[in-house]
């Protein structure tokens, strides 16, 4: 349990107001403390130094091959992230939403899922997309502004990205209820749903209502909250007095805080949670304690509201480095392996650049597509009028 001090905010008048450029000393300390300590309940299996530790409730047998796979996933998705970020800087993407720092949370959670499980992402879940078998190139259209994402959500069991904060949680609750009504829950072969959202989202009514619904219908739903410490410029303390995972108790289901920078712990906890859900013991809340290492999006400048010290501290907890250290120390991987992963990352980066710069602009009719599942006479009339008007301009394909 958290100590009582954690249950109250610092006195608002205790110190002079901070300026954007210069927080007060108290704020610096409070900020560093809040973001440094995951607390006694934090589930961890691999320390930031790369030391394997055990946990009484959650442990995992991992083969060298599996761990190499997780490492590779994280390196590749980080490369995708950096590459896309660079493409945005070069004007090839309108915006990018970086996942830097959250690789372990996403790869751990994503690799815990089975093909039959369903995922509802928010907008930063490129790592989850990767684990669902979605080619990163399929994400690019969303950020280049040419399409809304091209994967098939039914086939991949990966819902489209959600932008309106928290509102996918209700849809996930409904989807999971459907799995239960369909009798696809109850044994080892059962299905489950995962819903991804951020620390900021936990303040939305939709998320609370989703908790209530999933609880009263025993829905096979894992709420996976990536607490990356920030909701744009607002720290998690602006959203909650209580550590977020402890909220679950009030709704009547377990809540667990896992080291979101520890891919092993995240994998173990999520596997357990999904298993519980498969067997009909859902829902469950997981708070993955992690850090957004980069800006909120490429439109954001985090120096306006947070300290670089905080970032430096989290760099020491890098999700990829600790796995590398462990792999080397165990002699589970040699330099040939690491070079191979690097080469794969280079190749992936190249593919992304190539794909991005060659994406075609969509045709004008697209404006009127998929507004209704079947035809609609009013809309068809508007479309015809529009295309007629457009064709009046010289060279007016669009």
């Amino acid at each position: 349990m958290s100590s009582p001090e954690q249950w109250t905010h610092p006195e608002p008048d205790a110190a002079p107001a901070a300026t954007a450029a210069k927080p007060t000393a108290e704020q610096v300390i409070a900020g560093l403390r809040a973001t440094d300590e995951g607390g006694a309940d934090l589930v961890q299996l691999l320390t930031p130094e790369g030391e394997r530790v055990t946990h009484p409730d959650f442990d995992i047998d991992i083969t060298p091959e599996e761990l190499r796979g997780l490492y590779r996933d994280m390196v590749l998705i980080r490369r995708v992230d950096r590459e896309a970020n660079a493409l945005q800087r070069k004007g090839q993407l309108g915006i990018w939403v970086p996942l830097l720092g959250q690789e372990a949370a996403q790869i751990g959670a994503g690799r815990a899922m089975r093909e039959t499980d369903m995922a509802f992402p928010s907008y930063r879940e490129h790592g989850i997309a990767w684990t669902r078998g979605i080619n990163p190139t399929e994400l690019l259209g969303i950020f280049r502004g040419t399409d809304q994402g091209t994967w098939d959500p039914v086939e991949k069991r990966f819902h489209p990205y959600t932008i309106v904060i928290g509102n996918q949680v209700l849809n996930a609750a409904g989807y999971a209820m459907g799995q239960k009504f369909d009798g696809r829950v109850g044994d080892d072969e059962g299905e489950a749903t995962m819903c991804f959202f951020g620390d900021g989202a936990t303040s939305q009514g939709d998320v609370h209502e989703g908790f209530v619904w999933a609880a009263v219908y025993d829905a096979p739903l894992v709420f996976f909250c990536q607490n990356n410490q920030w909701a744009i410029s607002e720290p998690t303390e602006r959203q909650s007095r209580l550590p977020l995972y402890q909220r679950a108790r009030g709704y009547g289901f377990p809540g667990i805080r896992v080291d979101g920078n520890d891919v092993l712990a995240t994998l173990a906890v999520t596997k357990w949670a999904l298993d519980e859900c498969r067997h009909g013991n859902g829902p469950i809340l997981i708070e993955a304690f992690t850090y957004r290492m980069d800006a909120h999006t490429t439109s954001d400048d985090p120096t306006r509201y947070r300290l670089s010290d905080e970032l430096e501290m989290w760099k020491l907890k890098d999700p990829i480095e600790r796995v590398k250290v462990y792999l080397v120390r165990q002699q589970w991987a040699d330099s040939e392996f690491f070079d191979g992963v690097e080469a794969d990352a280079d190749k992936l980066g190249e593919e992304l650049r190539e794909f991005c710069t060659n994406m075609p602009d969509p045709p004008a009719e697209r404006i009127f597509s998929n507004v209704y599942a079947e035809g609609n006479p009013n809309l068809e009339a508007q479309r015809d009028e529009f295309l007629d008007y457009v064709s009046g301009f010289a060279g007016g394909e669009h």
Partner: protein
Amino acid sequence: MKTTYREALREAIRDAMNRDDRVFLMGEDVGSYGGCYAVSLGLLEEFGPERIRDTPLSESAFVGAGIGAALNGMRPIVEVMTVNFSLLALDQILNNAATLLHMSGGQFPVPVVIRMTTGAGRQLAAQHSHSLEGWYAHIPGLRVLAPATLEDARGMLWPALCDPDPVLIFEHNALYNLSGELADDAGPVDLTRAAVRRPGTDVTLITYGGSLAKTLTAADELAADGIDAEVIDLRTLRPLDADTFLESVRRTHRAVVVDEGWRSGSLSAEIAARIAEEALYELDAPVRRVCSAEVPIPYAKHLEEAALPQPASIAAAAREVVRGG
């Protein structure tokens, strides 16, 4: 003084905060971040975290809390990032803000001001780009404002805060960088009248907010064609100042309504209906409307542009009513 729409809004907030200590601003990221569109940048340093409040991420809660604070005598300015997200607070706006005075037998006025961004044109896709101010203009009990100029950005907030009723202010996202001259002593403006932004004799173009600049551009194009268009900026979408546009239509005998909202069941429909009710026999041609395509706002730049009213489509509609197509 040279300024921008964004700075004029900020100056209006600053002025209101200085005039009345019951005024405070709250919303997501309005503090050190300075608001989603940087309107409140610097105000945290000036007024402190009690009066420039970052809120938990919850539209229904901060709009509802704004209503509660207003009931208790405060004068809150609530900032919602975009009109799309105001839908999470629609219950509070309609069922409480707009209704409490009536349902409390006049005991509970709700002097809250809710500001939000509206409109498309910045490639923010279908969940950040709609123009839903027409929906709010449908609701009795609200005053709905759409500042389209520096004067109105600077001058609408204070009278809105003085209004005992809830006021919604819609800031079109294309306007924040609008720059120009603003009088040093610019201050509160009248909220009751529409404005003639360009006098003319041949056709009345009725618009507001983010479409004003496009409509003025269309009017220039039309002038080159020998068509003298009058441009009316509604300014207040509810209650509508119909007299100003009806008077104009009676002179020009032709009307085009330009509205970035969707056409069916819309504010543009309301204006066309008022003209039909009050001035049908003055018309030499049917009223035309230039609105957004009735689709979720597209994402790709060229598709987004094509889906919105543009100077060319506005001018084409005006030519049609003047020359019969």
